[in-house]
Each structure stands twice: as structure tokens, then as C-alpha cells.
């Protein structure tokens, strides 16, 4: 539980969560809803069949402005920001000098500025990182007064169409400025559930009213962080601090797809970010470990930290995220194994409570992603 000397922060939706009888837990310095009375499994399933509303205001929202802001941010991420088109969003990574990942983040070209969303647990670190390295090249404004809501699920599109104009043609990873009941919102069609959905940035003064308007829609239920985790795990999405950390490079974590062409060894703006030589070296020469999916037989979950061994009990990897997937109706996990074992179908054992549980390497995701592509 939290250190009583630490001041626990609240989001603009705190009172609403309490009203909805959420089970509140400390998370990254914030009091956050882990579940509501519906419970983890039903909240998860509801999001995959209708629409779930998540409060993710604990995450950091940062506005970067300046003439050369895209070039500046490119010095910190192995991703193309210069050619990121207006109202387009991209997944990115902050890397360190060892090629390790400091955080994963989302960057949107919002027209006259870059809109960056970072993980709550890394917020202070990331802001300091940007200030230290690019603080002289652009203006860095932390959007303290803004809440972030995520509406996720196959019916999220229908809900938004009903409440505002301008979302029907919005495809995955694009952004728009819209208005719901006179409340201005900056939205991106993206999220962390594997389903279609929107992330909605709104001023704190309007956050509760916006949340109530969304919850009043018949398709929408309030969903907690517990279900958020099982949803992303089923879809093979990484959780920073578990599947990604400073000891893992983007190549090892199977995130090569995020490393856009222009920043690769043969691209127009190759390298130029921390750890570039190491990462480009790995792209050329391979890596010793890789992130893969782990499927356990039976119903017993294999969780974070479980050691993975081969038939001769040699330690060859570890589970970095694991639990029970309500949609899969079975255990789901991901982890890292030595590269020669990172082949779907390979059978291994996970050590759970000192016993060997048979598992196999599988391709991610466990549940197919359902993004709206138009």
C-alpha cells in the first residue's frame, strides 16, 4: 500500500469514481479506480463488446511548441516525427545511451504543436529528460489542467457519432478537435485496449461532466485499471516497467515496427537519438533475447516474474506480464526468451510455486486487434 507520507494525487474524476463505488488504489502517486462493482472480468468483456470509459488522467500530457520542435523530439526517439502529418499520431520510445527504453509514449502532430502522452510512472522522468535535452529548442508545457479519458470498444464510434461531429471519418491514429455539449476536446482515435476507441483530452473543469455524458450512453460503462491491463495483455501491448524497461532495447522487445524507415541505418535521418549505434547494430546483427507470447496449458495463470526453463531445466527466459484473459478465457502472458527459443510452437516450462507448468511460445496477440481503418 502507499507510504502514508506520500501525498496521493487525485484526478478530476475522483469524486465520480467514489460515487460509482470504484475500488480505489494508489497507482503512480494517484488514487485510481482499479475496478467498479461490475468487476474485472465483466468490465473487460464489456469493453470488447460495447464501450468502456477509462480515466487515464494520471498519465502525462505535454505540449511541445517551436519552429523546429519535430527535429528536436527526433533527437530523443528512434521514430519519424518530422514527417508525421498534421493530425496524425505515432507510437514512440524514449531511449537511453545503452539503447534501453526509458518510456513508451504517443506523439500527435496537433497542427501548431506536438501533443505527447507519457506513462504516469515516468511522467517526471520524461519531462525532465525533455527539458534537459531539448528545453532550449522548444517550449515544453505540461498540461496540468487537463484530464484524459479513454472510450474503448466496438461501439465507441457509434457513441461519438451521436455526441459530436467529425469522428465518422477519423481513422486509427488520427486526431481531431471536437466539441461535445459545448465542451472542447482534443481526441485521437487510439487506445490501449486493442479495440476501436478514442482518447479524449479535456479541461479538468469539464472532465466530470464529459464523463457523465459518456456514461449516460447506453453502450458505455465505467472501466477500471484492472481491466485495462487484461485488455492490453490479450492484445500483446507492452506495459512499461514490465515488458519494457531500461534493460531492454526496441529490437529485443519486438518493437521494430515502431522504428520508422527514415531513422534506420539507410534512412534520410538515420540515428541521432540516444543508443542509436547499439540499436542499429542489433538490427544488423540480431539480439540475444526476444519478447514473445507465452501460452500456458490449463487454466492456471502464469504471472509476471515466473522463470522460463527448457526441458533440461536451464533458465532461458522470464515472464514479464501474465494473468488471466477473460476474452481468451484462459491464461495469457508475455515475456522474454533467448532468441533461439523465440519461435512459435516451442514448448517450455514456467516455474510457478516451485512446480514446472508446461507452456508454449506463441505469436502475439492472443486476441486480434480491431482498429478502425475506414
Amino acid at each position, binding site marked *: 500500500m502507499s507510504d502514508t507520507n506520500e501525498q496521493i494525487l487525485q484526478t478530476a474524476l475522483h469524486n465520480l469514481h467514489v460515487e460509482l463505488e470504484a475500488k480505489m488504489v494508489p497507482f503512480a502517486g494517484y488514487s485510481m479506480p482499479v475496478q467498479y462493482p461490475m468487476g474485472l472480468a465483466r468490465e473487460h468483456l464489456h469493453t470488447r463488446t460495447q464501450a468502456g470509459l477509462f480515466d487515464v488522467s494520471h498519465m502525462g500530457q505535454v505540449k511541445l511548441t517551436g519552429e523546429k520542435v519535430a527535429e528536436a523530439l527526433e533527437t530523443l526517439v528512434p521514430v519519424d516525427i518530422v514527417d508525421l502529418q498534421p493530425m496524425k499520431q505515432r507510437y514512440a520510445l524514449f531511449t537511453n545511451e545503452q539503447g534501453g527504453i526509458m518510456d513508451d509514449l504517443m506523439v500527435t502532430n496537433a497542427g501548431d504543436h506536438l501533443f505527447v502522452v507519457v506513462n504516469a510512472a515516468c511522467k517526471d522522468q520524461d519531462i525532465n529528460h525533455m527539458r534537459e535535452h531539448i528545453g532550449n529548442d522548444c517550449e515544453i508545457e505540461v498540461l496540468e489542467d487537463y484530464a484524459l479519458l479513454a472510450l474503448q470498444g466496438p461501439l465507441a464510434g457509434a457513441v461519438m457519432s451521436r455526441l459530436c461531429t467529425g469522428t465518422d471519418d477519423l481513422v486509427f491514429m488520427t486526431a481531431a478537435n471536437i466539441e461535445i455539449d459545448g465542451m472542447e476536446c482534443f481526441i485521437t482515435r487510439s487506445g490501449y485496449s486493442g479495440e476501436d476507441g478514442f482518447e479524449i483530452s479535456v479541461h479538468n473543469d469539464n472532465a466530470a461532466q464529459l464523463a457523465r455524458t459518456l456514461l449516460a450512453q447506453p453502450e458505455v460503462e465505467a472501466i477500471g485499471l484492472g481491466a485495462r491491463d487484461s485488455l492490453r495483455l490479450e492484445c500483446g501491448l507492452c506495459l512499461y516497467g514490465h515488458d519494457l524497461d531500461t534493460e531492454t532495447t526496441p529490437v529485443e522487445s519486438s518493437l521494430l515496427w515502431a522504428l520508422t524507415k527514415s531513422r534506420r541505418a539507410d534512412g534520410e535521418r538515420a540515428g541521432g537519438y540516444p543508443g542509436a549505434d547499439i540499436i542499429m547494430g542489433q538490427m544488423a546483427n540480431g539480439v540475444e533475447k526476444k519478447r514473445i507470447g507465452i501460452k500456458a496449458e490449463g487454466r*492456471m495463470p502464469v504471472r509476471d516474474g515466473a522463470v522460463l526453463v527448457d526441458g533440461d531445466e536451464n533458465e532461458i527466459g522470464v515472464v514479464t506480464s501474465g494473468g488471466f484473459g477473460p476474452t481468451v478465457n484462459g491464461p495469457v502472458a508475455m515475456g522474454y526468451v533467448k532468441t533461439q527459443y523465440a519461435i512459435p510452437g516451442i514448448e517450455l516450462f514456467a516455474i510457478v510455486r516451485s512446480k514446472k507448468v508446461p507452456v508454449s511460445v506463441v505469436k502475439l496477440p492472443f486476441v486480434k486487434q480491431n482498429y478502425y481503418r475506414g
Partner: protein
Amino acid sequence: MSTLKYTEDHEWVLTADDGTALIGITDFAQEQLGELVFIELPAVGDEVEKEDAVAVIESVKSASDLLMPVSGEIIEVNEELDSDPGIVNEDAMGAGWFIKVKLSDETELEEMMDEAKYMEGLEDSE
């Protein structure tokens, strides 16, 4: 005459006349844990002591141990829970029993709470 006793860890013990008892987790416990997805039970014949971790209860989010509230020999386990751990959520005090034990020390029961005391404890912690 059977008696129903409780522990602070939200387990119940239902004794029978023949020196055996059924053991489970309370309704409060199952509600706190949420939907159960897997239960690992001990082997019949195991000799266990009070406070031994004898079963693992897995919910979507986490695993918890069932600690023996009493000492004895495990003479039966509820095999229904293998295929349907949800029985514990539905009927924690009845069909959701975990273990039947032959008690080795009936004085251990004296340290346990009766229903009134357990319920009072639940109200106090709210």
C-alpha cells in the same frame, strides 16, 4: 452438533461430530477476490499444520493462498472446484467448500471466532 467458526483471514471451519471439518473462504472473501479463475487444492492424505498454505486461489488479477485455520489430515478435497472455481463465488459458504480435514487438535477451534464476532469484525473494518 456442528459448529461454524471463522478466522480473521476470512476462512470458515464447519465441524462435524466425527472429528472432521469442512474448510472454505467466506462470502466476504470471495467478493473481495472477484471472479475466481483457478483453484489449486492440496493432495488427499497430506498432513497439514495450522497456518500452512494449502491451496492457491487465483482471480483474474492475482493469486492468494488459503492458510489452514486448523491442523490435521486432509481426507477430501472439493474436486468440483477444478472445473468450476466460480462455485466459490456463487456459494462460498456451502458448495464452495475447499477441503475436508480430520482435526488433530480440537483446542485450536477455541481460538477462532463465532459468526457474531466475525460479522462484527467486518462491520468495524468498513
